C-alpha cells in the first residue's frame, strides 16, 4: 500500500517557520510510523531529524503528534491510522521548543522530573537482606513504575501548552511512584512540592494525558490520588 506522510518540518539554520512536506511512501499495514520515518530518512530525505532508539516503545525517544494525537512513532501501526492512499500527519510534540523537524528540547521536561525528587528516600539503616514489602503494597504503586519518560502525556496537556511552569503529568506520575511506595520516607517533602501553584493543582482533569500515555498508565487517576493525598495530609 501507499500512504502520504505529511511531516511538519523545520530546520533552524534555514527556515523562519515550520512548513509541511509530504512524502509518498510504500508500506505494509503492519509497519510502524517509525518505519516510514526511517524509510524517508534513509532513502529519500536524509536531513529529516527525530529521535529514536529501541523501536518498540520502551525507551521513550519518539513521542510525536501523529494524526493529531500524541503517540510513539514506534508503537502506532499504519493500519490503525489510515487506509491505502490515505494521509498521516506527523508533527513535533507541543509545548517544548522545536529544535529541528520532529525533535524538541527536552530539558524543561527533565527539569520538572528532577524537581519532584524522583528517587528513593529512606535513610534508615539497611537490613541485611531486602526490605520486605507485601504483594499489595508493591501493587499500590505499580502503574507509575511503567513510565518511560516519553513526555507524551505532558505535551498533550492543554495546561502545559499554555503554562510551561506546570510540572506536568509525567513528573506527577514519578512522584506518585514514590509517594505510594511503602518503603519510601520522602512522602511529605514530595507532597509539599506538588502542593504548589506549579504542582497538581494546575491539573484541570483534561484527561489528554491518560489517553496519550503509550504505557497505558492511568495518569489522571494517579494525579487525582496525589491531590487527595495532599488534602488528607494537610487536614
Amino acid at each position, binding site marked *: 500500500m501507499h500512504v502520504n506522510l505529511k511531516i511538519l518540518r523545520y530546520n533552524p539554520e534555514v527556515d523562519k517557520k515550520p512548513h509541511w512536506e509530504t512524502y509518498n511512501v510504500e508500506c505494509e499495514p503492519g509497519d510502524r510510523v517509525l518505519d516510514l520515518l526511517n524509510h524517508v530518512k534513509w532513502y529519500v530525505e536524509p536531513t529529516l531529524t527525530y529521535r529514536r532508539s529501541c523501536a518498540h516503545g520502551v525507551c521513550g525517544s519518539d513521542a510525536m503528534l501523529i494524526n*493529531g*494525537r500524541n503517540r510513539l512513532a514506534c508503537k502506532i501501526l499504519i493500519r490503525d491510522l489510515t487506509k491505502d492512499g490515505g494521509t498521516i500527519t506527523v508533527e513535533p510534540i507541543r509545548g517544548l521548543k522545536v529544535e529541528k523537524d520532529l525533535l524538541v528540547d527536552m530539558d524543561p521536561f527533565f527539569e520538572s522530573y528532577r524537581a519532584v525528587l524522583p528517587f528513593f528516600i529512606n535513610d534508615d539503616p539497611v537490613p541485611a537482606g531486602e526490605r520486605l514489602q507485601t504483594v499489595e503494597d508493591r501493587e499500590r504503586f505499580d502503574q507509575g513504575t511503567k513510565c518511560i519518560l516519553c513526555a507524551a502525556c505532558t505535551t498533550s496537556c*492543554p495546561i502545559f501548552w499554555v503554562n510551561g511552569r506546570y510540572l506536568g503529568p509525567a513528573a506527577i506520575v514519578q512522584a506518585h511512584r514514590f509517594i505510594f511506595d511503602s518503603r519510601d520516607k520522602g512522602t511529605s517533602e514530595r507532597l509539599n512540592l506538588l502542593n504548589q501553584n506549579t504542582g497538581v493543582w494546575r491539573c*484541570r482533569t483534561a*484527561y*489528554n494525558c491518560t*489517553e496519550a500515555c503509550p504505557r497505558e498508565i492511568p495518569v*489522571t487517576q494517579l494525579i*487525582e490520588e496525589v491531590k*487527595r493525598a495532599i488534602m488528607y495530609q494537610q487536614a
Partner: protein
Amino acid sequence: MYRGREGQWAWLLHRLSGLAILAYLMLHIVSIGSMIFGEEVYMSIHEIYDLALFRLGLIAVVGGVLYHSLNGLRVILLDMTGRGIVYQRQLFYATLVLTLAGMAFTAYKVIPRVLGGY
C-alpha cells in the same frame, strides 16, 4: 487542533462557560445594583433586557450555567472518587444531555412569552 477526546472538550467548555457566566454576572450586578440610583435608571437599563434578542440570550445563559454547574459536579466526582474517573466519559455525555434538556425546557417556556409579547 489536538484531537483530544471528551475530557479535553469538557475542560474547554467548562472554562469558557465559567468565564462567560462570570462576565454575565458582572453585568447582572451592575444592572440590578443600578436600583440604588432609583427607578428611572434601573428601568432604562432593564428595558434593554426586554429586547427579544436579550431574552433569547438568556437561554444561552441558562445553558452556560447548567453546563458549568453539572460539569463542575462531574469534576468533583472525578476528584473525590475512583469511580468518577472510570465513568468520566459517560458523565460528560450526561452533562451535555441534561444541559441541552434544560435549555430546551427554558426555550419552551420563554419563546412563547417572547412571541406573545409577555
